[in-house]
């Protein structure tokens, strides 16, 4: 068991070396990779989960399916999915399998919140819309969808933060991203690389927390004022919060 002498000091030195920022494979490169992978994965997840969740919510069916998907993905180790997908795609270790693997983990919060968002619409509003002669499609687009927006935003925040967190693990399958900095540090060894390990950890954690704060703000912005109170009740987990993290 080796322990670094002064990890914090080492980390500060490492972060203050400009070469560690601009080198090929330096912090800026890795940050770019990280953001690209995450953005693509979240986009892919939205493309799959939102239409499905809204549609199931509109029909009022498939609650069991939504719960099953959430629980199943909670039990699947991220590492297993990241290593298995490249084999399935047989495309070597490009970005695609990593993006798909991450998108799988983005689906549950997106799906669950899209579903809940439509289901929580006041049945009276739905009846009124039907009484006004709206068709099923119009009901979904003009009534249920706008009322579900706060939930969609909450799901988006949860999914995005989770994907950004999980993307750090892409480094295990040589997928790049900020996790690579930590892995390289461990490669050097804790005694010499302790600072780099710690610096990488700060970057990864900082990015995740930043995403959480920024997207939390977005979530507040798109939530109409009257809906803001009461939804953040203490100790009451929303569907999105129960789906684990990497």
């Amino acid at each position, binding site marked *: 068991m080796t322990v670094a002498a002064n990890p914090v000091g080492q980390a500060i030195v490492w972060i203050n070396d400009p070469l560690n920022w601009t080198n090929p494979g330096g912090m800026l490169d890795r940050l770019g990779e990280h953001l690209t992978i995450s953005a693509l994965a979240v986009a892919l997840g939205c493309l799959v989960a939102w239409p499905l969740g809204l549609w199931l919510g509109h029909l009022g069916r498939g609650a069991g399916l939504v719960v099953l998907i959430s629980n199943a993905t909670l039990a699947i180790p991220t590492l297993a999915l990241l*290593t298995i997908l490249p084999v399935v795609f047989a495309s070597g270790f490009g970005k695609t399998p990593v993006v798909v693997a991450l998108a799988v983990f983005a689906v549950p919060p997106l799906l669950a919140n899209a579903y809940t968002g439509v289901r929580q619409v006041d049945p009276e509003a739905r009846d009124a819309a039907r009484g006004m002669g709206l068709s099923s499609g119009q009901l979904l687009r003009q009534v249920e969808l706008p009322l579900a927006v706060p939930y969609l935003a909450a799901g988006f925040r949860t999914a995005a933060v989770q994907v950004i967190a999980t993307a750090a693990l892409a480094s295990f399958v040589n997928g790049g991203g900020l996790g690579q900095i930590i892995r390289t540090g461990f490669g050097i060894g804790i005694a010499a690389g302790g600072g780099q*390990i710690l610096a990488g950890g*700060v970057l990864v954690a900082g990015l995740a927390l930043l995403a959480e704060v920024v997207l939390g703000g977005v979530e507040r912005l798109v939530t109409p004022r009257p809906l803001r109170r009461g939804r953040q009740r203490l100790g009451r987990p929303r569907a999105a919060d129960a789906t684990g993290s990497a």
Partner: protein
Amino acid sequence: MSFRLSYRADPGNPWFSWQYVRDNSDTILAAVREHASLTGRAVLIAVLIALPLSVLAYWFRPLAGPILAVSGVVYTIPSLALFAFIAPYLGTGATTVLVGLVLYALLLIVRNVVAGLNQVPPEVREAAEGMGYGRWGRLFRIDLPLALPGIVTGVRLATVSTVALVTVGVLVGHGGLGQLIFAGFQNNLYKAEIMTAALLCVALAVVLDLLLILVARLVSPWSTRRAR
């Protein structure tokens, strides 16, 4: 039978191979053992820390916000980063993995226990007070038994996600079954090894989950008719 079929389809690298399982049963069993023991210890420690924390948050409402917020922030930190924070101080041992796992499980348990405690109906609380229960008596005889569904949900969620998280311990060489997954990846994508370990991971999560449901039934015979 199935072994022969898969052997013919892809002689070099089948998805699953009994041969691999037989030849490496010692390694696999050791990995399962490490995985289960890390999970068990992490959840146990997390419960021991989470229960007092939740009771604090329940008794002293002003503390509820900060306790949930801090554990929420810890939960947002990616696992890899959390291990990276701990490793330079605790070294590359199983302790590093254990501490990380406990920190993660903490939030899931605290949040669900607090929710469970808050669900205790105020009438019941007042009735208990009227019957002369003190703070501690009420906690052990009324509040905690009534919060049991929340506690069970929290422990189950924490257990299942901890099983999945242990694999990230590969970073410091103590990833249980994750060790096999990663070895399979490095070993020219040995599919049988990756698949076996991944399936065992999921199976372990399911088994532990069922075990917890069973325990919950045993300790709360009055709620057997509840679905969750």
